[in-house]
């Protein structure tokens, strides 16, 4: 049977079938913001697209770290799989906290190996209504500023709590490659300053708002927060409603009550950060085999790359993945985005699925003796790949 499809019919069909792809009503404003140098923070979406981008960044970072530390990531990724045994990571207990009355900041432990510094951070909004924004203002070591670009992880640029996460706290950490003049010091005196931005006006939150809806709510006297990262302001100079990122709070001091928290602690030079685990060489499952290309601690944190070689359609039925302990209990509490990537390699005959997972270095002390990257299939079946950490 042959039937001609006109261009008009072709267009209408594709438009109809792709009608879920809706234009973003904020696109023009977002683009103008980006063009003016305000970068949109990384959204915590677990879509394949974002995951891929994160993975690309992570690869670049891993190779960079390998160069800095002499640790040959590339060898683990692509070649010889000999696993090195490196010293145990020991964190230095800090146990320091400060409170402004409205917010609390706590550091429990830190690691410093002569080149890299990492510490955990716990930040809590003690009056969770309204949500607040925490911004890392300054980090110094021995009085020397550590520039923002050296900071690998931050906990700022998100409303606490928010519509996606009702918990009034953030838990994360900072992992920093120190400037050369600080490297090798026997002890670091760390000073961390954060500013807390608490809205003066009542807050209206929504995950999705059109500019018109946002304007109406703002006119009612609300500070409108759009999703966990953004908010709306009126800019007189532009005579318009302006979408802004949460990190942009610094530009509107009149809209916030600002508190400053300053926390200081010392951390002596300790053990090497890098360490590689010894996973089983090959895991046999009912659906195929698997092996870790990378199972290591680097100065970027725990890094796992699991490669699955399915022998049936299991890889198309994977619904989720979790980092669990040895008993299959998910490890909760890390607020960082797991660095996860699913890759179907169709090069040659090697059909493989790769998961990558990163865990904040500052929180390594929370890891149990045995961990596992565990894949959950659509029917609930779990495929666990345990590793002995200690």
């Amino acid at each position, binding site marked *: 049977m042959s*039937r*001609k499809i006109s261009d008009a019919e*072709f267009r209408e069909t594709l438009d109809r079938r792709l*009608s879920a792809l809706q*234009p973003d009503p904020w696109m023009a404003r977002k*683009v103008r913001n980006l063009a003016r140098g305000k970068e949109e923070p990384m959204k915590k979406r677990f*879509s394949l*697209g974002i995951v*891929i981008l994160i993975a690309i960044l992570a690869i670049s970072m891993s190779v960079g770290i390998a160069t800095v530390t002499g640790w040959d990531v590339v060898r683990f990724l692509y070649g010889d799989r000999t696993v090195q045994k490196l010293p145990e990571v020991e964190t230095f207990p800090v146990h320091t906290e400060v409170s402004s009355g409205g917010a609390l900041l706590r550091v429990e432990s830190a690691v410093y190996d002569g080149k890299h510094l990492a510490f955990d951070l716990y930040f809590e909004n003690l009056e969770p209504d309204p949500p607040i924004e925490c911004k890392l203002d300054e980090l110094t070591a021995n009085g020397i500023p550590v520039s923002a670009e050296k900071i690998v992880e931050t906990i700022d640029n998100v409303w606490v709590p928010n519509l996606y996460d009702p918990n009034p706290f953030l838990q994360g950490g900072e992992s920093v490659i120190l400037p050369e003049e600080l490297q090798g010091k026997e002890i670091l005196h760390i000073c961390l300053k954060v500013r807390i931005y608490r809205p003066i006006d009542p807050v209206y939150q929504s995950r999705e708002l059109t500019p018109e809806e946002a304007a109406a709510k703002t006119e009612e006297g609300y500070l409108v927060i759009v999703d966990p990262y953004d908010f709306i302001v009126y800019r007189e100079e532009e005579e318009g409603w302006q979408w802004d990122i949460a990190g942009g709070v610094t530009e509107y001091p009149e809209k916030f009550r600002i508190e400053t928290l300053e926390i200081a602690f010392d951390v002596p030079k300790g053990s090497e950060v890098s360490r590689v685990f010894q996973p089983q060489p090959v895991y046999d499952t009912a659906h195929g085999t698997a092996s870790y290309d990378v199972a290591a601690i680097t100065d970027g944190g725990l890094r796992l790359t699991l490669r699955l070689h399915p022998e049936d359609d299991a890889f198309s039925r994977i619904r989720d993945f979790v980092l669990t302990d040895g008993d299959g209990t998910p490890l909760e509490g890390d607020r960082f985005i797991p660095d996860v990537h699913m890759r179907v390699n*169709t090069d040659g005959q090697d059909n493989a699925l790769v998961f990558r997972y990163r865990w904040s270095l500052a929180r390594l002390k929370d890891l149990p003796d045995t961990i596992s990257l565990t894949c959950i299939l659509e029917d609930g079946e779990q495929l666990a790949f345990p590793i002995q950490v200690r």
Partner: protein
Amino acid sequence: MGNVTGPGTVPDRDQEFDRLVDEYQGPVLRMCYLTLCDKTLAEDAAQETFLKIYRTMDTFRGECSEKTWIMKIAVRTCYDMNRSGWFRFMNRRVTPEMLPEPAAEETDESDTELTAAVLRLPLKLREAILLHHYQGLNVNETADALGISHSSASGRLKRGREKLKELLEGRELYEP
């Protein structure tokens, strides 16, 4: 079809940019999706496309149509995303089940079949088919947007139509 004017005051420029976003965001987003086969990537690519447009709109002098210029940027942006080493290992074959659920409008099985068939076309053929038959660029404009010669564009369109006919078991695009 309007053309972007030269440098002006900031409000004029922003107003003009708003118009471009209003007019082309939908086509750019769908073009990016049909090229990249991933909704989130397409959204990222569309934003990147408009960022490039915003930064370069003062230099557009109307050497080609406004739509050709915009599609050229969109295609190039998707091409850059596709070109990365990591992406080369990606198999982003989209099955009908993987297509985003349509919004309120009614669709039928043949809509899904045609869309999935387009997505199964090799990328080079798909780009040409989409620019010409979907975005409505003529062959010269399609060639310009893809940075190839007129004869190459014609060849890709011909092969694209043949391949699509094969995938659709007989249904075919009109060949002008």
